[in-house]
């Protein structure tokens, strides 16, 4: 999940939780769909080793940030769907605040370099 070609692995690792929580905030989803969505949205620059997503999802579930239910895919296969719990929403908004702060500090510093 943390194999990064364009973005460094540390940043990929740090962004995994906020990205997963933010995706689940849009509605329930399952592992494969989450991976595909991240690939599409990052235009392939954010590479995750697919199998590593599941330990992270399970940890989020253990921490009661997400919940899961078993359903069926269109092909009849069992599929585990994850959705956000209330503490997950709080954790997500905290992530957003933190990342927005980091972004704004960086943006301001960059702007000052060109003034």
């Amino acid at each position: 999940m943390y194999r990064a070609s364009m973005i460094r692995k540390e940043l990929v690792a740090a962004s995994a939780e906020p990205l997963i929580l933010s995706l689940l905030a849009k509605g329930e989803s399952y592992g494969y769909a989450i991976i595909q969505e991240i690939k599409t949205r990052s235009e392939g620059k954010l590479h995750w080793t697919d199998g590593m997503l599941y330990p992270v999802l399970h940890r989020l579930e253990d921490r009661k940030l997400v919940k899961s239910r078993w359903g069926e895919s269109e092909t009849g296969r069992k599929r585990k769907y994850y959705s956000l719990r209330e503490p997950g929403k709080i954790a997500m908004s905290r992530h957003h605040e933190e990342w927005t702060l980091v972004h704004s500090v960086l943006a301001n510093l960059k702007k000052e370099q060109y003034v």
Partner: protein
Amino acid sequence: MFDIEKSFAEWRTQMLAAGIKTPVPLVELENHLRDDVEKEMLSGSAAEEAFEKATRRIGLAWEISNEFDKTSKGQRSAKFWWIWLWIGSCGLAVTVSMNLVGRFVLHRGSSLFLSHQWWADWFPSYAVWISFTIIGSVIAIGRWRHTGIKVNQGLAVAAGASFILSYLLPAADDESGTSCFIECWRVLARSGRYQIFPFGWWSYYSGFVACNLFFVLLFVAILVRTPLVRARRWLSLALFLQVSSWAIVNHFSVWTMPLGIGYFIWLLSFVLLFGAHLVPDGAVSYSNFLAPAGNASPTRQESRHS
């Protein structure tokens, strides 16, 4: 000829051999792999090539297994400290019960709290079990990731438990903590014999009522993570100083009374509360949760396919 079902079976065997548990998460992983293979085949790849690409993307069995192990190791560790805390609490409860039976049922002199013989007979047992309980509660609650409880909240819970316990135990002159608290309320209200209490002493004893009320507020403040961190820190220190001053005042005053174990546990609860406000409120920590995984997986994965 390539048999895709046979390949799935071999992949499953590898996963099981690496320690991936079934049905969860193996079923989840296998269905992910099947989804990926199907998508790859729809985009024009042959079955063998699709399977090869999908297994590469899903990662190595031992890597995934290691990641799951980290979660279960954390759970085992948390469980160990909860058992530790449970043993400590039981030991403390048994010691307190035996001490109370000795004091109030059997009327043994050695069971009188803080008497000369009490220190020799009972203190070692109290010291062991209280240490056990405090260490267990701080670490167990701090490591309990399922709730996201932090170390400062663990300290606050330990403080709360000590605070409640102190009300049940003899605090001063064989009076329970509850009786002492009621007495301080009487001072504050200037009821009965306290009507003529000098202002200095009135404000000093009323301060204990304030300490108890602020304790509850500061306890809640830790659990709900309110702002004003510095103010909370100073206030908790002030409360601790006020509570600890009683031991000194009592020692030097003309009406010295024997202090009970309840007072010391009450004092301990304020030490723990101060500690809880002193520990930085760690918000969400990436390092606890993700960094180890980030370091573990990429190198081998990339080296395998480079």
